[in-house]
């Protein structure tokens, strides 16, 4: 049987950090899936997590989201010109982000993603769905995941795993 869902990179943090970059992504898959597991901010508070591609720090990203939380009730919003695609907040105790990036290796279309945010944290428990866009036709060769705030950071034990999905 042909394997269609293959691991590209996996990292477990042994020290807290604000940013992690997965580079040299093979261009041999159709889609990418990024799973950020056991994630929380190192200060035990809250911080927004985002991704950007190919080191592009320009205002070339946007997102639209819906969700529900203990603090904010039902919510929906949009960010049109960010320096990265928001994935939602990370809280304590630990939660999960899962990001699907479609057709990442083509060079003719802007890149889209859909992601889930799942946390249950005192006062901040939240479930959300975020749709993202990178206004670039470039193939995605690297993914940078970062905390919007310089501090807090991704805590020790946070895992980052990138999978490639083949169409055949």
């Amino acid at each position, binding site marked *: 049987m042909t394997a269609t869902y293959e691991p590209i990179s996996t990292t477990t943090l042994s020290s807290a950090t604000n940013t992690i970059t997965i580079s040299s992504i093979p261009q041999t898959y159709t889609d990418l899936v990024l799973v950020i*597991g056991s994630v929380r901010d190192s200060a035990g508070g809250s911080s927004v997590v985002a991704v950007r591609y190919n080191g592009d720090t320009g205002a070339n990203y946007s997102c639209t989201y819906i969700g529900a939380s203990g603090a904010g009730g*039902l919510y929906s919003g949009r960010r049109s010109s960010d320096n990265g695609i928001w994935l939602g907040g990370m809280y304590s105790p630990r939660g*999960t982000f899962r990001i699907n990036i479609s057709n990442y290796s083509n060079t003719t279309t802007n890149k889209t993603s859909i992601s889930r*945010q799942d946390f249950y944290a005192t006062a901040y428990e939240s479930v959300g769905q975020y749709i993202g866009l990178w206004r670039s036709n470039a193939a995605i060769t690297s993914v940078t995941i970062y905390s919007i705030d310089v501090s807090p950071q991704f805590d020790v034990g946070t895992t980052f795993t990138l999978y490639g999905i083949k169409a055949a």
Partner: protein
Amino acid sequence: MAATHILIQTVTVGVGGAASIEFSSIPQTYKDLLFVVSGRATTDNPTLQVYFNNDTNAGNYRFRTIDGDGTSVANNANTQPWLMRVTPSSATAGIFGNGTMYIPDYSGSSYQKSTSADSVTENNGTTGFVAYHSGLWLSTAAITSIKLDPYGTDFAQYSSASLYGIKNT
């Protein structure tokens, strides 16, 4: 290249239904777990409880859900293992709800376990329901078993669930 989604077990409910579906002795050799459930209840209660390691103390579970039924959207939370839904018995015969749950880092023993689930039901073009569920089990124990237990009711015949282990190497 290695396959990453490995089927651990599939359970299909037989004649007469079943009180629950349980995956036990889950290997600790994967990074994450994913299960898929096709479920229908024998009564009109659609709530599906998910217990880990046979911990049936409701106080050890939390959830936050956003759900919609075609006319309204709701935001719910509680101290309960109500982490998914199935199709209730009032739905047209033969219709089963679908759900998936992703459990990252299930074999660790340092952190409480976070879950990410989706549930959908559609009743013959008349009613429907969709939900995103964020869950937490307040235990740092490695997950060795998972029990799917319809709240106050049973699984109907032909309900099924499959558990996959996800490798990262």
